[in-house]
């Protein structure tokens, strides 16, 4: 299970690099206003919020997995 989350993390990193770098970003690199704010401004903060949210979700899942693993191996490894 932990392996699955690691794979998700790799996917999230790729997504982050993808969202915050030129090819995708340049699509929004216009001076037009959307909802009263510049398009790129809106895009960057929206993407940023999304990434933080996904990271929070995965980190929580990972922590829970870690706890369950740790509880299972407790006793066999004193330094756990």
């Amino acid at each position, binding site marked *: 299970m932990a392996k699955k989350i690691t794979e998700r993390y790799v996917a999230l*990193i790729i997504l982050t690099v993808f969202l915050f770098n030129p090819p995708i970003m340049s699509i929004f690199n216009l001076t037009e206003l959307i909802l009263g704010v510049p398009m790129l401004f809106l895009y960057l903060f929206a993407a940023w919020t999304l990434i933080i949210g996904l990271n929070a979700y995965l980190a929580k899942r990972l922590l829970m997995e870690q706890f369950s693993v740790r509880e299972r191996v407790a006793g066999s490894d004193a330094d756990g």
Partner: protein
Amino acid sequence: MLSGWFIIMTSFIYIGLLFAIAYYGDKRADAGRGIINNPYIYSLSIAVYATSWTFYGSVGRAAADGLIFITIYLGPTLMFVAWWFLLQKILRISKANGITSIADFIASRYGKSTAIGGLVTLIAVVGITPYISLQLKALSTSLTVLLEYPKIIMPTAETGLPVVTITAFIIAMAMAAFAILFGTRHLDPSEHHEGVVAAIAFESIIKLIAFVAVGLFVTFGMYKGFGDLFLKAAAKPELQELFAISPSADYTQWVTLTILSMAAILCLPRQFHITIVENAGTDHLSKAVWMFPLYLLLINIFVLPIAIGGLLQFPAGNVDPDTFVLTLPMSTKNEGLALLAYIGGLSAATGMAVISAIALSTMICNEVLMPTLLRMVWLRLNERGDLTALVLNLRRFSIVFIMLLSYGYFVFIGESYTLVTIGLLSFAAAAQFAPAIIGGIFWKGATSQGAFAGLGLGFAVWIYTLLLPSFALSGWLPQSFIAEGPFEIALLKPYEFLGLTGMDNISHSLFWSMVVNIGFYIWVSINTEQSAIERIQAMIFVDVDKYSGTTGRSKMWQGSAAVGDLRDLLNRFVGSHRTEQALRDHARIKGLDLNDIMAVDAEFVGVAERLLAGAIGSASARVLVASVVKGDIVSPDEVLQILDETSEVIEYSHRLEQKSNELEIASNNLRKANEQLQELDRLKDDFLSTISHELRTPLTSIRSFGEILFDTPKIDQAQRKQFLSVIISESERLTRLINQILDLAKMEAGSMDWEMSEVDAREAIEEALVTMSSLMDDKSIALDLKLPDNLPYVFADRDRLIQVVVNLLSNAVKFCVDLEPVVKVTAEVDGDTVLVRVADNGPGVPDGVEDIIFEKFQQVGNTFINKPKGTGLGLPISRQIIEHFGGKIWSEKAEQGADFRFTLPFTLSFQIAE
């Protein structure tokens, strides 16, 4: 209200508050109720990343180049998204090895090398001092601007107020005092400074509040929200340009800055210190990985609005955009907010300066001064008493040295450069550590020579392409150095090295320094051999999962040491309390009496080395322990063998554990299967006893009537006929019963032969009705039939479907005892199924037994009527059949009588045709 003395008083009151918080934090920690042991304080303390550069400089950058400032915060976000692969591993390695600083980390990885520790320290001091100066500069600028209130005048070299220079100096010294008081209070092997961390977290809150307050004021106070502000800006073409990434700052710079800030969040000494060294629990990191980026997001939302607000407010261009955070509230006479903004900037500056000073002083002391002093045999340092004081004094001295150096840099060179340029200069210096760190934790083959060459040459390129030109810009070197290159050699121009043009200075420097750094790191590593201790450290770092918490590492010493020698040594650096505790723990583990131990074994020597490393760094610890241990370092082959054995044992135990888990799962499955079998066995017993009872009833009557006929031959004809008819009907009942039992058994065993085909449900129901019609006529039961013409086909076994309808009809006929008996049969389309109803107006099914009647031999009403009316198998068989067809059968609650219903799914072809 904003008079000079009031502003300066407020500054000092604020700094006094920081002292109070740090004092409280330390007090709580001493009492064992630390306040920093939670992920929120930890996340806030990491926000020391946001310095006065963020606070003032981001706005300046945004006013010049638009949104590109945001890369400085996207980089850390990216690094914190990748935390599981980098930060987490570095943290675990550092905890396992008692790492005290980034220099200690790198030195420790490359064989606890003093040379590498020293080089890293040198790079850090040279690279970070300008950054600390930057904080002082921001502080003095903001103070000067604020003191001119209500006028808005930009400070120049000529108008520099003496009171400002003095205040900046006093604040620098106050920061040094703070760092000394709370950063070098005692020598703690875990290198935790709770008070400092608490104060830093507090400062992070203040600077966020201050910046957001100014942002809200500009956006919603001076303008009517984002829409209004941006709309006004959009009217001016030069402001509209800022909405996108402007042509002057292209995508190369975007990528460079992102990479640079990714490296910075990992490699800046203060970030390493606060994220890794001060970490109070590894689990905190998993919360900080989203809370810290969230903090960065919040503090950045208003950067662009403030920049645009400033440019709209001061169109003449006589106000430096770096001061907008301050001058915007001032220009609208908002004194309280201006003061808050100033305090926010002060928070950002002091937080950074304090942590940097502590981190750098630890490095200077542990990696440079202590190893050097310990090697000077004539000092006889080994024979001195308590050395804790010496170590602490060296650190205090280092802190003062760093602050003075920064102040000096600020006074002599600081005025010529904008905030952003100096900050990026430091980022590029810190980035030099990245290859050695990342390579060091993933690549076992990296050697200390490789790391030394990479770091050293990368640093040299950095000096040449960034630091020296900055001296030239400040007038310390001739301007021609930049314009024409040294000795007028154009290929050596520092900003266009080897003729590389078209990049900004930072991208240019980062490119060349990384080419050299990574290139030599790899090339030299491949062509050199690791020493024994390097190989060991490489294994411990790269395979931290395998070796942490094992004894393999501590067996790196052969031979033993006298308890007295080792105890003295530890006493001197970590204090007697901790020493005795460690000795007692060791004795307890070994099962020995402390008083009986004369010489400690290799294992404890390892423990002692780690304790010492926590206090004075791994390089110094090694030198010290070597001086008291009799015997040498174990030969490389032996150590590697020990490590391999250990890892094999661990591997083996992991496999064993896996096996035992598998076994447990298997035995669980077996237990479940056994329980199921027992349940089935019980059911079978029940079934058998019920069945024998059911079979015996007709048999008994057949036999008794047969006996009567046999014993009394003179029985009259009419009675004989009646008895025989009973025998026949009971035999029929018996046959039916046995047939049904056979059917049911076949169905349950799955060996029934089904002849599945597309069946016209209407035709099947009609045939069932024909079969039952004579019986119904006998009992004069009225039939209420509703069959639509266009019932879809269902996929079923026709004969079995008829059997179900017949079963239901015969039940209805049997139980229909009303004066005007009516049986109602309807069929209709319901969703994607055909719903068939067979209802009567008899006594109906009693409440609560609707499900039970579908079980074997469960007849309702037996108790009221002497003779059972059915076999008790009709409904169970019907259920088996319907379920085989993919439908459902149940008894619906009705007001009067029984109401049995079943559904049959359409055939696929019908659905497609429809």
